C-alpha cells in the first residue's frame, strides 16, 4: 500500500509540473500583451517599457521559466507561485482566500447531491418503471437541459426576489455583518472559531441557493450512475444467491450498495475535479469570489502568474482527490491493489 501511494505521488508531481510548464508556454502564445492592461489607456513608450521590465517580460522565455520555477530567487520549487500582475499580492495569498470558498461550496453540494442521489437511485433500481423511476427520468431531462447559471438565476428570482426568503446573492455574508477574523478562510469554520453564530447562520444561509443550484445539477449524473450500477449488481449471481438463501433485505441492500459504490465514487472524483474550476458560473451568479472566478479573471487579464498558480493548485488537488478515491476503492475492493 505504501509503495503504491508513493508511486502515485511521484507520478502526480511530475504530471503537475508538466501541466504547469505546458500552461506557462501556452498562455504566452495568446495573441495579446498583458502590459497594455497595466499601463492604462494613455501609455508612453517609456511607461510600456517600464511595465514590461517590472513584470519580467523583457527576459527571454527560458529565463522567465527559470524564474517562475525558482532558479532565480523564489519560485515554484521554494513554495512561491509569484505575484499577481493585477493586484500585486502573492498568488498564494489570493488562492488561499478564494479556494476555501470553492471547496466549501463544492463539498456541501456533493454531500447534498449524494444524500439525494444514492437513496433515490437505489429505490429506482429496485423498482424500474415505477413512479419514482419515471419522475427521475423526467428530472434528468428537465435539469440536464438547462445550464447551472440559469437555475441559479431562477432560484434567485423565486426565492430572493419574489418570495423574499433567501438572502441577497451578495457573497458569503450579509453586507451589514462584519466577517469573522480569517483563520482558515472557510467562513463557516472561521465564524465558529470566533464564536460568531450570527455570521455562521448568515454564511450557511448564503450557501443554500448556490448549493441548491450545484446539487440540482450534480444529482442528475450521480443518480443515473447509482441506478445503473445498482441494477447491474442486483441482477448479479451473488445477489440472486443471497436472495435465494433468504437473507434479510437490509443485509442484501448493504452488499448491493458496497458492490455498486465503485463507479459512483469514480464519478464523484471526476465531477469534483471538474467543479473546482467548473463552478465559476455559480460563483459568479452568487458573487462568491471563488477560485473559478479568480481563474477566469486571471485569464481575461492575462495575469500569467495567477493563471499558472491556479492550474498548479487545481492539478495538485485533483491529484490528491484521485489518490484518495483510489485508496477508498482499494478499501472497498482490495483486488485493485493486487492488479
Amino acid at each position, binding site marked *: 500500500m505504501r509503495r503504491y501511494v508513493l508511486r502515485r505521488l511521484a507520478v502526480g508531481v511530475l504530471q503537475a509540473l508538466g501541466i504547469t510548464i505546458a500552461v506557462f508556454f501556452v498562455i504566452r502564445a495568446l495573441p495579446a500583451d498583458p502590459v497594455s492592461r497595466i499601463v492604462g489607456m494613455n501609455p508612453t513608450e517609456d*511607461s510600456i517599457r517600464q511595465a514590461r521590465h517590472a513584470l519580467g517580460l523583457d527576459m527571454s522565455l527560458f529565463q522567465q521559466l527559470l524564474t517562475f520555477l525558482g532558479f532565480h530567487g523564489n519560485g515554484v520549487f521554494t513554495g512561491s507561485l509569484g505575484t499577481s500582475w493585477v493586484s500585486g499580492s502573492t498568488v498564494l495569498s489570493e488562492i488561499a482566500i478564494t479556494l476555501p470558498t470553492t471547496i466549501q461550496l463544492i463539498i456541501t453540494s456533493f454531500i447534498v447531491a449524494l444524500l439525494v442521489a444514492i437513496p433515490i437511485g437505489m429505490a429506482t433500481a429496485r423498482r424500474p418503471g415505477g413512479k419514482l423511476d419515471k419522475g427521475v427520468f423526467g428530472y434528468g431531462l428537465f435539469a440536464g437541459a438547462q445550464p447551472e447559471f440559469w437555475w441559479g438565476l431562477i432560484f434567485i428570482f423565486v426565492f430572493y426576489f419574489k418570495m423574499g426568503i433567501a438572502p441577497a446573492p451578495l457573497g458569503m455574508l450579509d453586507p451589514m455583518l462584519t466577517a469573522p477574523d480569517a483563520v482558515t478562510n472557510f467562513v463557516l469554520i472561521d465564524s465558529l472559531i470566533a464564536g460568531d453564530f450570527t455570521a455562521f447562520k448568515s454564511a450557511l444561509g448564503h450557501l443554500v441557493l448556490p448549493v441548491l443550484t450545484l446539487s440540482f445539477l450534480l444529482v442528475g449524473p450521480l443518480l443515473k450512475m447509482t441506478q445503473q450500477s445498482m441494477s447491474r449488481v442486483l441482477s448479479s449471481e451473488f445477489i440472486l444467491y443471497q436472495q435465494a438463501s433468504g437473507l434479510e433485505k437490509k443485509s442484501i441492500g448493504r452488499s448491493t450498495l458496497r458492490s455498486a459504490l465503485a463507479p459512483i465514487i469514480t464519478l464523484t472524483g471526476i465531477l469534483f475535479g471538474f467543479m473546482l474550476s467548473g463552478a465559476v458560473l455559480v460563483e*459568479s451568479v452568487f458573487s462568491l469570489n471563488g477560485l473559478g472566478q479568480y481563474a477566469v479573471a486571471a485569464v481575461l487579464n492575462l495575469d500569467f502568474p495567477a493563471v499558472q498558480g491556479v492550474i498548479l493548485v487545481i492539478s495538485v488537488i485533483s491529484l490528491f482527490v484521485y489518490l484518495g478515491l483510489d485508496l477508498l476503492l482499494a478499501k472497498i475492493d482490495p483486488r485493485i491493489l493486487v492488479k
Partner: protein
Amino acid sequence: MSLKRAISAAAIFSIIVPTGLFVSAAGSTAATSQVTFLSEDVPAGLDYDGPSAAIPASQVGMVNLMEPLVYYKKSGKSPSGVNLLKFGYNPADFQGRLAESVTKNGLVWTFKLRKNVVGCKGEKFTADDVIYTFARAKSVSGAAPIGYFLSAVGGIKDFATFDGKVPLGDEVKKIDDYTVQITQEKENKLFLPALTIFGMGMFDKEGMEAQKTAKDPWSHDYANTVNVPSFGPYCLSKWTKGSEFVLTANPKYYGGKPAVSKIVLRKVPQSANRLAAIRTGAAQLTERLTPKEFASLKAVKGVSVGSVVGNESLFLNMNYKVAPWDNIKVRQAVAYAINYDKLIKNAYYGQAKKWKSLVPSTYPGYSVPKTQYTYDPAKAKALLAASGYKDDGSLKLTYVAEKESTLGPVVTQIKADLKAIGLDVQLDPLPQTQFGDRQLTKRDLPFAVNDQEKPIGVDAGYATYLFFITGGLNNMDNYSNKVVDDTYKAIATEADTTKRNAGLATIQEELAKDVAWVPVVEFATQWAYSSKLTGITWHPDNCVRFFDLKI
C-alpha cells in the same frame, strides 16, 4: 436504514433544511450611517503607480483614502439631482484641499498648506509629505508610473527624463513646513487640472516610509496589497481582494467627520444581482447597470437614479493605416449611415445625446464643429459608391466582449445600419485585454466600437494631445493631420484662454471634416441608490466620493 426511510431523509434534508436556513438568513441587522455600495469589482490595489491603477475600482479606493492639494468646486446640479463641478484652469476655479491657497508668479506656483490636517493614525500633514509624493513619482519605480506621467502632463520642470535616476530637485521645493513651491517648465494650462487627478493624491511620508524595504524603498508592495497612508476622509478597515472593501470615517478629517460612518464596497459581478439588491433595499448604492436596468428602476419606490452626461461617450474608430478605412468617403458613408436617434432610444433608453464633436461637451475648450453628420442613408450609399470600395463581407466590427450586455444592442444596430447601405460587417467581440493591446500597443484594430475613452485631464487640449496629434499616446487610428499638429503646438503653451479656445475649435473642425472618429453618442453616467441617500456628485473619473454622501 430502509430505502423508504432513506428517501424520506433525503427529501427532508433537501426541502426543510434549506428553507429553515432561508428564514434564518433573510433578516439582517440594520446599522446606522452605513452605506453598502455594490460594484463590478473592489480595488485590486491602492498604489497609483502600481499595476492596478488603470482599473476603475482601484481608483475608487484611491480617491476616497487619499487627498489632493486642490480640487474642483461644486457648481449646480444635473436634471436628476446629481451635483456637478465647475472646470477651469486658474486658481480661482479650484478649492483648496490639502493646500489652503495657491498663487502663481510666472512659472512658480506657491501652495500654502493647511495646518492641523491629521491622517487615520494621527499623523500630521506637512510639506515633507508633498516632497515625498513628488520624489516618489519621479523615482519611476512602480509598474505603471502614473504620478510621473501626470507631473509631466502638468508641465512640472524636469519631469522629462524617465530613467528614475534623476532625484527630485528644486522643481518641488519646501519653503517651510506649510509652504511648497512647484515650478513649471513652461506655461501649461493643465497644471492645476492634473493635480486633481487620482494619481496626484498626497502620501503620508511617515506611514509610507515605515513600510519600505531595501528592495522596495517606495513601499509599492504595501500600497498595492495592504493600505495607502494618506489624509483622506476615510480609513481602510478591511480589504479582501476580489470580494470586499470596507471603509470607516476618519473622525479627524479636516473637512469634518464624514456623514456616512461606514462604507461597505462589495463585488457583485452580475448587474442583474446588483439591480435586485437595490430594489429590495439590501444595498443603498450601485453603478454600472445596463441602460435598460437603470430605466427599469425609475418607477421603483424608494430607489433613485442619478444621471449626468459627463465625459463618457461612444464612437467608431477607423484605422487610417488599414483599407478601406483610409478612404475618407468610406468613413463619411459610415458617419451618415448610423441612425443616431434610434440608437439613443433603443440602446440607451434616452440616457444619451448625439455627440457633436470629439471631446466631451463638459470640458473647457469644447466647441461644436460646423461639419456634422446626421442620419442620411441615401447620402451614405452615394458616398460608398463614390469611394470605389466593393464590399466582400470581410469587414469586422470589433468591441469589448465583457461589455456585451451594454454594447450588444449598439453593435447590432450599427451592423444593421451598415448593411442597409451595402456594408456587411461581422461582429467581432474581443476580450478587454486583447482589445486594449491592439488599440494601444499594436494600434492595428481596423474598425471598432469604443465606449471607454474619457480623458482624465479635463481639457479639450489634453484630449487632442492623447488621441489626435501624430503619434499621440492613444492615437489608436494612426490619424495624422498637419493642421491639427501645428495648431496644437501653437496652443500648447498659450496662456490666453480665448486664443487657446479658438485653436481648439480649429482642431475640432478639422477632426470632423476628416471623420477622425465617428462620434456617436455621449451617454449618461448613472447610479441607482436608495432615495434616502443624497449628495451623489459627478467627478471626471466617474468614481463616487463617499464624503459627498449623506443618508
